């Protein structure tokens, strides 16, 4: 009788430890998502700022300037629900403006343009990176949260169900060409 009780107790403790370990895993994943999201926000903001700077610098022709300024401004001001759309539209505007290599060369030739072009190249390269890392973390957390043990024992607590950040982040061809 006592032996049975001891075994039951041992089993309960083992289950408890396992659940606590899983909760720790989940907690770590949520922290990773938060960090990845902050990094993604920083990269998106950086990209919009560089685009806006270029649009107001007078290096681009007036039509291109307006298109780029509009898109960059909208991306910076967008509410959370419209963010993905606004950022995608900024990607499209950047692709339209920097479709040709000549345009990039023109920016480089302007005073201070070398640095602006470098910053923009870096920004359009880092946004897809940061987004991939964020969505990777989200995917891992979702897989774990859909597991029975997490749902039955409510191990996720009150943390909101993580959402991937979906947007068009294809960089402009003239900037993405790694051969240059």
């Amino acid at each position, binding site marked *: 009788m006592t032996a049975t009780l001891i075994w039951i107790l041992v089993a309960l403790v083992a289950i408890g*430890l396992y659940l*606590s*370990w899983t909760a*720790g*895993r989940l907690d*770590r*994943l949520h922290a*990773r998502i938060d*960090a*990845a999201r*902050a*990094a993604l926000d*920083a*990269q998106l903001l950086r990209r919009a700022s560089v685009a806006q700077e270029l649009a107001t610098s007078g290096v681009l022709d007036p039509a291109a300037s307006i298109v780029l300024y509009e898109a960059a401004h909208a991306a910076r001001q967008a509410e959370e629900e419209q963010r993905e759309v606004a950022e995608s539209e900024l990607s499209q505007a950047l692709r339209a403006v920097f479709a040709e290599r000549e345009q990039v060369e023109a920016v480089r030739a302007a005073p201070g343009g070398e640095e602006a072009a470098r910053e923009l190249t*870096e920004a359009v*390269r*880092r946004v*897809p*990176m*940061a987004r*991939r*890392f964020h*969505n*990777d*973390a989200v*995917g*891992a957390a979702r*897989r*774990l949260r859909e597991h029975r043990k997490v749902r039955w024992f409510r191990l996720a607590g009150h943390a909101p169900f993580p959402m991937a950040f979906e947007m068009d982040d294809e960089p402009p061809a003239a900037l993405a060409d*790694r*051969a*240059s």
Partner: protein
Amino acid sequence: MRIGIVCPYSWDVPGGVQFHIRDLAEYFIRLGHEVSVLAPADDDTPLPPYVVSAGRAVPVPYNGSVARLNFGFLSAARVRRWLHDGAFDVVHIHEPTSPSLGLLTCWAARGPMVATFHTSNPRSKAMIAAYSILQAALEKISARIAVSEYARRTLVEHLGGDAVVIPNGVDVDFFAKAEPRPEWQGDTIGFIGRIDEPRKGLPVLMKALPKILAARPQTRLLVAGRGDEKEAVASLPAELRSRVEFLGMISDEDKARFLRSLDLYIAPNTGGESFGIILVEAMSAGAPVLASDLDAFAQVLDGGAAGELFANEDADALAEAAVRLLQDPARRAELCERGSTHVRRFDWSTVGADILSVYETVTAGSAAVAAEDTPDSDGYGWGSGLRARLGLARD
């Protein structure tokens, strides 16, 4: 930035991953970063100043062959000590799925971690069994890098999640500026790789050689690499054997000069390649490349634009393409020129900057890497980790 790099394979055994880590570490050091590499090594091996030995790797049967791995209590302790002493801003783990230092580091560390997946092994039985253990360790990695689109696809299918593609790096100028050697010039085709490793494809090339020599009798085949030379030419008619020259193992300098001297570099590999660094080196040296159409090779060669592809394991196709290229200097010059522009994206200046971008993306706003449950860092001893897990510790 303080960067810690984990190498899963013995530093004393030459290999692609080890060379990649060596070049990467030296690139970052030149830029003024502090780099420490943790690698398995015998205690008496001379190591560069930036490498810390994690002890000797033990040969154990794993995944169908004998692998030299580091595991167990002592290795885990060395990993913790290295993490603790290094106080890294970011830790970069290579090949985290091999049961060696990479996996141990995943377990022991917390904070910004980057991992590079080099191979594209099909999922092994051991990995299925260990899946949940592996998953718990791998999900601590904040950024994953795959060395090719092909490696990324395998990663997505087998482990879930996603990765950015950053190719392996090559010091393009080192190859481009090498001096050709006259004795290796003049109607030469070249092969580099283990002679007795069938996956490197030398048997396919040997099968194609009589046809190539029938059309171009003045051609010589130069083979650089370890292995049994007699066995390699056994399938060849005796009168043709003199057209094959074995150079044995060659140094990095000689490799560059070798590739500079060739009329055509042939990569007949039949499988097991996830990247194909040798093709990038050949293109850097300005050698026209003819390679089997493995996924990884096709990608490195820009789908056939920067080098020619032939149907894998098809000796006739290889012979036909080789003869056509050898008879067409204009086409070779064109391939050579396209190759040299194409390889700029594999130069360390590009690849290193991309990897640094990844570091900066994951470290932005995060604390530095620390050893998890470090026994003495908080003065509570080993029990504090357990207490933290049970929710009893407050910080």
